[in-house]
């Protein structure tokens, strides 16, 4: 199933090994068809996700970033997802300040048994990113100015 606008966009996923990564596996085992834009990076816990990973992805050309962990209270490490929830919520509010559309970033909770839910999450998020289109590219003259400033320093 290719995404609705035809050409693929770049979506990075950070998934907790214990729940959402398993949920994505469950979706696969169930053969729940999904768009192909997402590339998943496995992490041990959503609490391991440094908000800078998300920013780094967005700065480096990702069109969307999706983070998924265990449902609150259901963390394999007791409380990792609580830390994640705070950090990611702050990040989401901070993105517009950096000039990044906050809709390009989403975090969600999917357990290892929720294959169907994972499919819905991927589908909805991919559709949203396609509606937003490719992430805006940096302006050429801005880059040159920045480089000039860097040289001056």
């Amino acid at each position: 199933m290719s995404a609705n606008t035809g050409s693929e966009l770049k979506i990075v996923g950070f998934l907790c090994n214990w729940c959402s990564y398993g949920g994505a596996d469950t979706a696969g085992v169930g053969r729940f068809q999904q768009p192909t834009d997402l590339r998943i990076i496995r992490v041990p816990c959503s609490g391991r996700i440094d908000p800078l990973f998300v920013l780094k992805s967005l700065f480096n050309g990702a069109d969307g970033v999706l983070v998924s962990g265990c449902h609150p209270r259901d963390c394999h490490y007791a409380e990792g997802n609580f830390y994640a929830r705070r950090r990611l919520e702050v990040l989401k509010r901070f993105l517009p300040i950096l000039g990044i559309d906050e809709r390009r970033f989403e975090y969600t909770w999917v357990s290892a048994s929720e294959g169907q839910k994972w499919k819905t999450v991927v589908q909805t998020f991919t559709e949203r990113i396609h509606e937003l289109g490719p992430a805006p590219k940096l302006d050429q003259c801005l880059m040159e100015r920045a480089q000039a400033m860097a040289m001056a320093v």
Partner: protein
Amino acid sequence: MKIGVFVCHCGSNIAGTVNVGSVAEEALKLPSVAFASDTMYACSEPGQDAIIEAIKEHRLDGVVVASCSPRMHEPTFRKTVERAGLNRYMFEMANIREHVSWIGKDKDANTRKAVDLVAMAVAKLTQDRELTPKTFDINKRVLVIGGGVAGIQAALDCADGGLEVVLVEKTSSIGGKMSKLDKTFPTVDCSSCILGPKMVDVAQHPNITLYASSEVADVKGYVGNFNVSINRKATYVDWAACTGCGLCMEKCPSKKSRDVFNEEIGTTTAINIPFPQAIPKKASIDPEFCLKLTKGKCGVCEKVCPTNAIRFEQKQETAEEAVGAIITATGYDLFDYTRYEEYGGGRYADVITSLQYERLLSASGPTGGHIKRPSDGKEPKDVVFIQCVGSRDKSVDRPYCSGFCCMYTAKQAILTKDHLPESQSYVFYMDIRAPGKLYDEFTRRAMEEYGTKYIRGRVAMVYPKGDKYIVRGADTLMGAQVEVEADLVVLAVGAEAAKGAPQLAEKLRISYDAYGFYMESHPKLRPVETNTAGVFLAGSCQGPKDIPTSVGQGSAAAAKVLALFSKDQLESDPQVSVVDIKRCVGCGKCIQTCPFGAIEEMDFRGMPKANVIETICQGCGICTSTCPQGAIQLQHFTDNQILAEVNAICQQTPAQNLK
């Protein structure tokens, strides 16, 4: 660095929708990749041998296998590379089956995605370092939660294997649902005759410590070293003194107390031993019905007790146990039969559950084994069984099959005829599911030898008419509506997750499904393991099961624990956090956030620094994303390793990003 990439066909599972050959070709173009090939089944013996050969022939430093989920085969391939002399952490997997080939049909898009995933794995591998596990001592005691037949079997097998067992049971006696059954299918042998001796074994086994009327309050620690708090509920009787003589039961004036063991089909006394074969055979007081505890007067039991065991002032206590492994065998509960308003369960006295009927059949039940209607005590002539009450019904959010109801209904129909030869049984069923050894033959006997009338169709409603009940349903084979006059209606209620199952799961840090049943590590190959090391499952807590399967799982879980404890020390996972002492500023943030207390402050030349206790660290990496200095790094998931994957996907630098 020289990396080898192996792209698996997995038969047609991957090759069907991914161009495996071109994934391997593209992989070879990546820097550091010295060898790439596609392979039919990477996990098969020839597949693994080919990997070993390639490592040796091309002197590879690391291996990427692009195949199924690492949750499935990462341990397999880690062993493979180890056999070829590599460190097992110089290995990465790209999940191109569950995350690619199975979820999309567009071969071009899938192939592009697979190439990306391989590139990510290669990028991560270039950052990987060799890691060596440490070993730690383990506590060879095991906690079994739940004293039903699965828990009993697990406890006995572990105890016979020489382990010390702590068995925790919520109610005042072990035995679980099986102890309430009259007979068992398909042999129609007496349930308490086969379960009773096992229960006695539990009581007498020197290796088993039994906590009845107790629940697990909290679990701390990790595989090999768990610390468990157990709440011992107040029973208002000193069990060390109680001899189980039963004199208190004879004299207790509060005779209308809730009889949980008999499924409330009769009543019992406020102080009671739930059933004659109870283990431990100790009395406990139901505080809701005890006159002394509710109204402050009575105390008859205190006067008659020959050993002065009554303690009205008793309070809940907490016990602490240290164990190395946990077997969860918490079983199931029955579907709430009052939810089907159209059947009138709870409103009509003679519409009862199958387990209530089991108590009516049992010689130790409230009617002494005589089938009598709850409403008027008359013997029923026509008995209607309704199957799938709370099974296979989306409208009550129970779409799954409970599995054992078809069989116990056939058994109950047979027993009805045995008890009351003049009776006639009817069974409304959707399908008969009898896939066990001698199971289908058994249901046939119910029909052919015992003349049970099986009607294929759902029941629309049950309503009283005079002192009888009209059961109206569909006969889908006849294509007609049927009405059966019944004296007694038995609802074959399905199984649902035990109450409190999700809360216990959260304490054990294991997963559960949408219905509250616990998730096994792999649905086929790891049925009694969970994703939390050292926590195992047995019986119906994982999904509805009949007795033979529950017993089998009890033994299986015990075997897993015995295997785990066959070594004196366990290897710790080296994927733990490590502090870079030069970067650490001693702020202590990591110490605050670590959920396991695995980080301590230490003194380094007069400066405070963080120090990770390796055997306690569980490898979550919360500290790594907390550290403002990037000084503490979770091995195998360092910032650089994760960012290498990010860069592999988002290859353009901002400058390249310009068009």
